[in-house]
């Protein structure tokens, strides 16, 4: 896909803070796509989002939003961007309707009827002040405000964090509706992998300020598989370690995880196995846990 068609493109982006470094971040968001941006707390998700939205200036690299750069087209980009921050930044003293009216004056594409429809759909009382709303309703109001000008790029920073499953479901369904319009894209950051698994087309996993995994969700789920089998003899373990990166053994019993599953790999492992090789596809959460390195150590030379 050419750079001009991409909604978001980050190339080699870096940012250093005392005690934290964001390094070599490369990201692409094509139209019609929901990109799930996952990672543990403190991995660099919010910093990356703040760089994308120009709230933080990167030390290095290039950020393009809708094919434009912030230094040249700040206002034009902002008018086509929707953002729901992690921490609620809405004025507590303002009502939902007033906020809609206020933002409507700044966005040429603001659709007030759509905004009110969203509030009704989300069951958010627009005549109450933000202070009077529950956390879930505040989040829904923030999403409605971000959607009402029909942004081409919607950036959500942990919108489902701390809200109940019903609200999460509503928000996730809304994102799926947004993406029906194939010209728009959603950048959805969350540490709730279940939500990402439901809606994302692409997944990027960030850990320790670096991107540890990125790609099409279906491809990732196809390629990451757990394979369990019994070795013919213990000496074959090294061969297994050369074929798959993550291996755990207990005597002759082996559990292995590959990040590049293909039928040929299965055939090769069958030659080393005493019996049948059992294959189990992994969920995103399991993959993230493996990448976190708590339970599975990556074999050297794999």
């Amino acid at each position, binding site marked *: 896909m050419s750079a001009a068609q991409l909604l978001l493109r980050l190339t080699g982006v870096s940012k250093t803070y005392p005690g934290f470094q964001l390094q070599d971040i490369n990201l692409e968001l094509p139209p019609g796509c929901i990109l799930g941006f996952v990672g543990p707390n403190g991995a660099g998700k919010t910093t990356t989002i703040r760089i994308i939205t*120009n709230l933080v200036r990167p030390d290095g690299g290039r950020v393009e939003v809708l094919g434009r750069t912030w230094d040249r087209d700040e206002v034009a980009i902002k008018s086509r961007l929707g953002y729901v921050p992690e921490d609620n*930044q809405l004025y507590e003293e303002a009502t939902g309707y007033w906020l809609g009216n206020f933002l409507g004056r700044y966005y040429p594409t603001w659709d007030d009827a759509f905004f009110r429809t969203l509030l009704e759909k989300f069951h958010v009382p627009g005549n109450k002040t933000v202070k009077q709303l529950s956390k879930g309703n505040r989040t829904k109001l923030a999403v409605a405000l971000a959607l009402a000008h029909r942004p081409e790029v919607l950036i959500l920073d942990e919108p489902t964090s701390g809200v109940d499953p019903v609200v999460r479901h509503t928000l996730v369904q809304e994102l799926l509706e947004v993406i029906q319009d194939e010209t728009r894209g959603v950048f959805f950051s969350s540490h709730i992998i279940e939500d990402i698994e439901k809606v994302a087309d692409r997944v990027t996993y960030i850990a320790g300020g670096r991107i540890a995994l990125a790609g099409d969700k279906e491809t990732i789920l196809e390629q990451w598989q757990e394979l369990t089998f019994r070795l013919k003899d213990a000496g074959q373990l090294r061969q297994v370690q050369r074929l798959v990166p993550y291996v755990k053994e207990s005597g002759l019993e082996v559990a292995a995880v590959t990040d590049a599953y293909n039928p040929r790999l299965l055939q090769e492992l069958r030659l080393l196995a005493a019996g049948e090789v059992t294959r189990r596809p992994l969920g995103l959460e399991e993959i993230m846990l493996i990448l976190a390195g708590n339970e599975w150590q990556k074999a050297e030379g794999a």
Partner: protein
Amino acid sequence: MIIMWELVTKDYYLLRRQAWWVLVLLFFSYFFGFRGGAAAVLAISSGISAYLLVLSSLSIEDKNNSLSFLRLLPVPARAIVDAKFLELVLGGLLGGVCGLVIVTLISVTGLKTITGPEVIWGIISSLAIITIVYSPTLWLFFRFGMQAARIASFITWFAFWFGIVTLWQRFTIVTLWQRLYQGSMGLFPSPLVAAGVLLALVTAACFVLFLVLSRRAFVYREMR
């Protein structure tokens, strides 16, 4: 300008519940101002309303962590800073208008003799004082945050409105001001016209300097 006006009206809307506080403080301030004459009424009135409106709006931004929200509006970042400075001037003018109403009432009811020069120079000096005293506070807010702005405004408030004004009365220049306020020097005596021009220049320079510094500080602090 329209962009900035929307940002200013936003602050007035958000401050709607605190507005009565301003009115109560203004009401009581007039009792103190009455003794000092029209200039004191105008200075206190402008000072209080500018101080309360600007500081309250900064507090609201700080409490709601809303500067990032504003930064994402499709407006240049400098418009957010400019709006606060516009608010400062408008707050001063609003207080000035309230002060003028009180001064008129004092004059009409015959409670005290009010002279024209007293009113004119009262308004000019009020606006100058507000700009010189509060522009740095706005810069401190955009550069270091609310805590620094709050401390600075607290210090300037006490240092200026109580300390400096008290000391001022001990200087001999006060005689000149008294004569002026009494109308004995006419409406535009040349020494005071010169002083007025100088004050206007200092005010404008102070306003522009801190506006530029605030714009830079806002970008630096928010984007680092």
